């Protein structure tokens, strides 16, 4: 089975069922048990949840998650009424330079729970839905490694990466001899820049919830432009 970046993927539903049996943590087991969609489910029938983390730095081995924003959506609607946001006490120190990026200060985090305390409610929100992120290496790696550090057990689930989609589209548009001659370069695939190509408004970046909403809107637009509501989920998830 090959997806659009030509990389073999797992049978996600089977994988999650397997994890459900083997994992030790009760919360994770419950999450895995809900499972996910069948490979061939069309996009129009899928409940997505857009997810964004703010972190203390870029290295998932050293740094930790300090804020989680998520919003459920489908191809037609982003549901603000079900949006969630958590602040999390980091395991490492909050550095000055990261404060400059996300603007989350010590006083914001005062009294915030640690990751394990929000794990249950967080997994409950994303269970059974298809997670959508912009740049999966942050969200997937941070969640997996931060958890390993705490309970010696990670978590992996399928995600749709709007940045990967945008990268594939951009490189496809720059393929061919003529474009090589014109030295056409792929456009920027950062969240804000990607959104501009679909005439989506620019938001103040680096708020986990705003970025999650921005990601949800971007996927709605990408599907309308480049895919079809009937496209099966297996073509997009990783």
């Amino acid at each position, binding site marked *: 089975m090959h997806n659009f970046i030509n990389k073999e993927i797992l049978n996600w539903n089977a994988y999650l069922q397997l994890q459900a049996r083997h994992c030790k943590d009760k919360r994770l087991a419950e999450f895995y048990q809900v499972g996910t969609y069948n490979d061939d489910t069309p996009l129009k029938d899928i409940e997505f949840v857009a997810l964004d983390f703010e972190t203390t730095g870029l290295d998932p081995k050293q740094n930790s998650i300090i804020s989680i924003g998520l919003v459920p959506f489908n191809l037609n609607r982003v549901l603000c009424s079900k949006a969630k946001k958590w602040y999390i006490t980091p395991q490492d120190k909050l550095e000055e330079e990261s404060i400059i990026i996300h603007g989350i200060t010590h006083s914001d985090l005062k009294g915030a729970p640690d990751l394990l305390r929000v794990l249950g409610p967080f997994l409950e929100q994303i269970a059974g839905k298809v997670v959508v992120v912009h740049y999966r290496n942050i969200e997937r790696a941070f969640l997996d490694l931060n958890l390993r550090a705490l309970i010696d057990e990670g978590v992996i689930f399928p995600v749709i990466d709007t940045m990967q989609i945008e990268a594939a589209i951009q490189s496809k548009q720059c393929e061919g001899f003529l474009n090589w001659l014109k030295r056409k370069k792929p456009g920027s695939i950062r969240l804000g820049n990607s959104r501009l190509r679909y*005439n989506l408004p620019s938001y103040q970046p680096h708020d986990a919830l705003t970025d999650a909403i921005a990601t949800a809107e971007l996927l709605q637009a990408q599907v309308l432009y480049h895919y079809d509501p009937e496209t099966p989920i297996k073509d997009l998830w990783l």
Partner: protein
Amino acid sequence: MEVELLEIQDFISQYPPFDELPEDALIEVVKSIEISYQRANTNIVEFKDEINELYMLRSGVVELYRRNGNLYNRLDQGGLFGQMGLLTNNKVRFPAKATKDTLLYCIPGHIFYDLCERFEYFADYVESEDSARLKQAVTNKSEGSDLTTSKVTTLLTREPLILASDTSIQRVAQIMAEEGQSAALINDLKNEQEKHFVGLITEHDLCAKVVASGLSVDNPVSDVMSTDLISLDHNAYISEAMLLMLRNNVHHLPILKKERPIGLIEVSDIVRYESQNSLLFVSSIFQQQSPEDLAQLSNQLKDCFIRMVNEDANSHMVGRAMSEIGRSFKQRLLELAEEKFGPPPIPYCFLALGSMARDEQLLVTDQDNGLILDNNYDPEIHGKYFEELSHFVCDGLDACGYTYCTGDIMATNPEYRKTQMQWEACFGEWIDDPNPKALLNCNIFFDLNGVYGRTKWAEQLNRFILSRTKNNKRFLACLARNALNRKPPLGFFKDFVMENDGRHNNSINLKRRGTAPLADLIRVHALAIGSQSQNSFQRLDDIIEAGILPKSKGADLHHAMELISIVRLRHQALDVESDIEPDNNIEPENMSDLERRYLKDAFLVLSNAQNFLKFRYTANTF
């Protein structure tokens, strides 16, 4: 855990009507929003779709269309649509299409209704703002001279009277009398410089709270002033002022600029302003120099009509204004005719018959008219003059949208150019020797009104008619029988009209089945009691006073007439707005649930009143 959706909150709080909402209400709105992305050239909602949301544009461009496909409005960032549908019958009124990639905020209907309920500014905005736009779209070259497009400041003629709160009541009354003001604002002593005010005193307060209760006029005015003050910003539209005053049942409204009062408007200011508008139209009729110019001007008649309907004028007001305008067209055409054919060789009176005479004209109307000629009329000598004059006038009226009468009841028909004596003889014959068949087509002659020339002759003729009809059992029985010919339907369902015999119809003619039989019925009673009035509402007042109807049935008839008329004129206005030729037909699926229910009640009243008519006038006669 309180979720902050700051990006969305910041956005919507910049645009009216959300800009005035308190933060907690704003947060509630934001939390309810669903976001939807629409690619360019996507239809968002279609005409008559069920609608349960208000839409706000976060980015992009959306165009709204009329039923016939013409562009109605174009919206961009911050624009709203869907409020019309939400406020009427939850059906999409104007289909919407994204013409550029668009991001929409969808706000659920229950939140919208809740905001309308709780925040006056919000309700006013979504109700009047759109009618203001509508107005612009309808009148095209609107000069900004009506209630929904003019600001309240246009009503202000002078500074408000501001007096200190310790002034004695008597002194206040003296100053109000000297200044010719019916109200004054009262300011707080501490804030004299600031021009802040803490109360309002009106002539009514002086009457009710001072004179009536025997309070000493030496007391300070602060004892009797009203302190529950309602005011309006100077940027508001006149229509908003009117709504605010009606809703709160106040007659004076302080107008503020940066929280300082810059004037005080009264209900009468608005009434005066409005009548100036219809007067303006009438006066421009008299400035036209040819039938062609008049025909040109008559195109604006629809705008005038729509303005009155949208401003919630009652049907009597609309009918009277439209009839006055119709009479003015006739009068000007007659003046032009006399310029062309020379002064009349003998005196005459030009008659309006039917709805115009009753002051009940709406938009779709044909012309019914006639001539009373001097008794010295000689067809050999004068015939040609009046024939030419009649053709000139009737042709001119037709060109102005008052189509020729299909029954040929027009001055162009020699039958209806009679001398005073001939008319009296004619009416005498109808009344004294009645037969239902002959009377069938002459109903409208019993509603007559002199428009031009010797208008006194019309009044004389009316008196003659009444002297013969009053208590004339045989005649009234004939007339009553004819008034029973048109029966109202049994009821209305979602998409059909249920007839008495169980048949279904797709539409109903509200004039033929509603207002006309009501007018017929009221006419019988009016002629029976010798009422001099022509207008159905005024006739009803006379009938109620004469005490011939069972208790409260008169008021019921009044309401039924008003309701059917209002539905009829609202639907005509809707047709005009949608560029459809207006008519008197209405399809039940285009009515709101409320309209269907009320109409059913109104028709029941008509049906009962017909039974009573039958009992009262036709029993034992045939």
